[in-house]
C-alpha cells in the first residue's frame, strides 16, 4: 500500500486548510448527523423505527467535507447508509426522522423508510437498497447534466462492499468514455457488512480501481474534514471543467454495526474504541476550534441547538400520522 500511503501524506500535508468559520460549520453539520443518528438508534430500540436501519456514525467528515465543495444543482446519490448524506444535503431532520418512523410527513410519505428517501428539491436521488445500483444511476445523473449542457456535477457514493460489483466497472467505463461529470466516492469503512476489504477484494488500493479507464483517483483520510474538503475541491473542479469522472477513496470507519441487528463480532471492540479515541472526526475539529480560541461555551451552544433540533425531529416524527392504508395503491403509476 505504499502508493496509497503516499497519497494520504499529500492530502494531509499540502492542502489548504479550512477557515475558522468553515470549521465551525463543519463541526455543526457533523455533530448534527452524529446526534441525529444516535436518536435514530434510540427510536429503533423503542420499536418506533422498523425494518432496516444503517447508521452513519463515525463517517460524518466524508459527506460534510464533500458537501462544502458543491453548489446548487449538483446531484447526489448513495447507498442505504444514507441519513448523513440527506442531512448534509440540507434535507430537514424532521422529514428524515418522520420517514424513518414510517410517517405520512416523511420525505417518501412513509413509503420508503430508512433506505429509500429522495428530495427533488435538494437534488438527492436516494437512498438505494441494491448494492452498486446507485453507481450506474449516478452516472445517469451526470449524463443528464451533460445532456442539458450545464456544468453541474453528480456525486455517487458507494462503500467498499460495492466496489467489485460488475456494474460499478461498467459505470467507470461509460463515465470515462463519455467524459461524464461524475465524482465517484468510495466510503471505505473497512467492512462490507461482516467481511473485511482484505477478504473481499483482490485490489486493496481502491482509489486506483478506475486506472484502466484513466479515471484519476486519490486516497484521503476520511476522518479529517479538511483533508476531505481539499481533495473533493480538486475532484469536483476536475469534473466541473468537463474533464470526466474522478474517484476518491475515503478511509473512514463506522462505529456501529452494519445495521441495527449486527452484533459486529468480526472486529474487536478495542479496534472500535481505538478509532473513537484517536481518529474521531468531530473531536478532531473540536480540538482545532479550541486551539483557535473558540470557547467551550460557544461549542456547548452549538451542541444545545443540535440537541433541540434532533429532539424536535423525534417529537415531530412520533406525533405525525401514519400513512392511510389506501396509500398502498398510490404512486404506483402516474396518470399518462
Amino acid at each position, binding site marked *: 500500500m505504499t502508493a496509497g500511503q503516499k497519497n494520504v501524506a499529500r492530502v494531509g500535508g499540502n492542502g489548504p486548510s479550512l477557515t475558522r468559520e468553515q470549521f465551525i460549520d463543519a463541526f455543526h453539520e457533523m455533530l448534527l448527523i452524529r446526534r441525529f443518528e*444516535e436518536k435514530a*438508534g*434510540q*427510536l*429503533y*430500540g*423503542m420499536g*418506533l423505527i422498523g425494518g*432496516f436501519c444503517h447508521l452513519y456514525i463515525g463517517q460524518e467528515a466524508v459527506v460534510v467535507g464533500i458537501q462544502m465543495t458543491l453548489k446548487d444543482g449538483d*446531484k447526489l446519490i448513495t447507498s442505504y447508509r444514507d441519513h448523513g448524506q440527506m442531512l448534509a444535503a440540507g434535507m430537514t431532520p424532521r422529514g428524515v426522522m418522520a420517514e424513518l*418512523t*414510517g410517517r405520512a410527513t*416523511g*420525505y*417518501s410519505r*412513509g*413509503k*420508503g423508510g430508512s433506505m*429509500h428517501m*429522495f*428530495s*427533488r428539491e435538494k437534488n438527492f*436521488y*436516494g437512498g438505494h*437498497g*441494491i448494492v452498486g*445500483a446507485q453507481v*450506474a*444511476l*449516478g*452516472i*445517469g*445523473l451526470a*449524463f*443528464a447534466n451533460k*445532456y442539458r449542457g450545464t456544468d453541474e456535477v453528480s456525486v455517487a457514493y458507494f462503500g467498499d462492499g460495492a466496489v467489485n460489483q460488475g*456494474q460499478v466497472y*461498467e*459505470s467507470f*467505463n*461509460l463515465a470515462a*468514455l463519455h467524459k461524464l461529470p461524475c465524482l465517484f466516492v468510495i466510503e471505505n469503512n473497512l467492512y462490507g457488512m461482516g467481511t473485511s476489504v482484505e477478504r473481499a477484494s483482490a485490489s486493496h488500493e481502491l482509489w486506483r480501481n478506475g486506472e484502466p479507464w484513466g479515471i484519476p483517483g486519490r486516497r484521503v483520510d476520511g476522518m479529517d474534514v479538511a483533508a476531505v474538503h481539499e481533495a473533493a475541491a480538486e475532484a469536483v473542479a476536475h469534473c466541473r471543467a468537463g474533464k470526466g469522472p474522478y474517484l476518491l477513496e475515503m478511509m473512514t470507519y463506522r462505529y456501529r454495526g452494519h445495521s*441495527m*441487528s*449486527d*452484533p459486529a463480532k468480526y472486529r474487536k*471492540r478495542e479496534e472500535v474504541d481505538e478509532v473513537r479515541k484517536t481518529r474521531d472526526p468531530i473531536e478532531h475539529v473540536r480540538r482545532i476550534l479550541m486551539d483557535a480560541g473558540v470557547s467551550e461555551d460557544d461549542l456547548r451552544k452549538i451542541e444545545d441547538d443540535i440537541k433541540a433540533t434532533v429532539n424536535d425531529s423525534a417529537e415531530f416524527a*412520533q*406525533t405525525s400520522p401514519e400513512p*392511510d*392504508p*389506501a396509500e398502498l*395503491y*398510490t*404512486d*404506483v*403509476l*402516474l*396518470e*399518462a
Partner: protein
Amino acid sequence: MATDILMPALSPTMTEGALARWVKAEGDAVSIGDVLAEIETDKATMEVEAVESGVLGRILVPEGTQDIAVNTPIAILVAEGEAVPDAASASTTTSEPKSELPTQTPVEQPPSAPAHVASTLLNAPEPEKDWGPTTEITVREALHDAMQAELRRDPDVFLIGEEVAEYQGAYKISQGLLAEFGDKRVIDMPITEHGFTGMAVGAALTGLKPIVEFMTMNFSMQAIDHIINSAAKTLYMSGGQMGCPIVFRGPNGAAARVGAQHSQCYGSWYAHVPGLKVVAPWSSADAKGLLRAAIRDPNPVVVLENEILYGRKFPCPVDEDFILPIGKARLSGKGAM
C-alpha cells in the same frame, strides 16, 4: 434527571429478548458508547450501548432473565450525585411508544383501491377514433417512424443501445436517426446492459426521456434489476416525487431457430411488476401508435416487439398525429351475439 434504560429492539423482527449479562454494575459511571449489557435477540447476542452519560443507578432486570418485552425498563440511569428512584418513571424522556407499535394498529379491513384505479381498469368501450387514410408500411418502418416523430417533437427524448447509431440498428429500426439527430441523441453503447440501463434510468429520474433499445429483450435480463428495482419502484418509494419516463424496447419472444436463450418471451415477467407498463404491438399501426404513446408516457414502459413481424406490412394511418392509448383494448371486429 433519572432516565429509564429500555429493553431495545435490535432487529426488524424482535419483540422480546433475554438479558444475557450486565457489563456495568450499579454505581458504575457510564459514558456515551459504553457497553451496558448483552442482550440475546432472535438473531444474535448484541451489545447495548449507553446513549447518555451518567451513573448506572439501579438495575431493574437481573441478568439471565428471559422473554423481556421490548421497551420494558431494564435499568435506571441517573446523573452523578442524584438520588436513585426505586422504580422506573412513568414517563421516559421520549414519549410513550406503545401506542405507536405497528402491531397495535391493526388494519381492520383490507384497504380499498382509490376510485381512479378502479375506473382505469373498467374503461367503457368508446368508439374507435377514425385516423383517416392509411398506407401499407412494415412494422420496422412503423417503429422507426414513431421514434423519429418523438425525437423531433421533444428534445428530452434520446435513444441509446448497442449498434443503434453508426451501425444503423442491429435490426435497422434506428436507420438514419444518427444522421438526423446527431450523436448527442442517438448514442451507441458498449455491450454492458446493466451499466447503460442504470445510466438511462438515472437520467430519466432527472426528467429526461430515454429510449433504451435492447438488441433483443433476452439481454434485458442482464439489466432487469434496474428495470424493476430502479425504474419501476422509485415513484412509489419516493412518495410520488420521482417518476421515471423511460422506454425499454426490443424484439421479444420466439424468433426462428435461434435457440432457447434467444427466444424467451418477457410478457408475463414484466407484466407482473407494479410500476411498469407493458405493450406488445402486433400490426404496424399498433407498433407506431403504442411506441409513440410509450415515449410520451411519464412511467417506465416495456415495449415488446417481434422480430418475425419486423418485415411484415400492415396498413397504418398517415396522419402525423397518429397515436394510440395504452391500456385500451381495440375492437377488431364484432362477434355474433
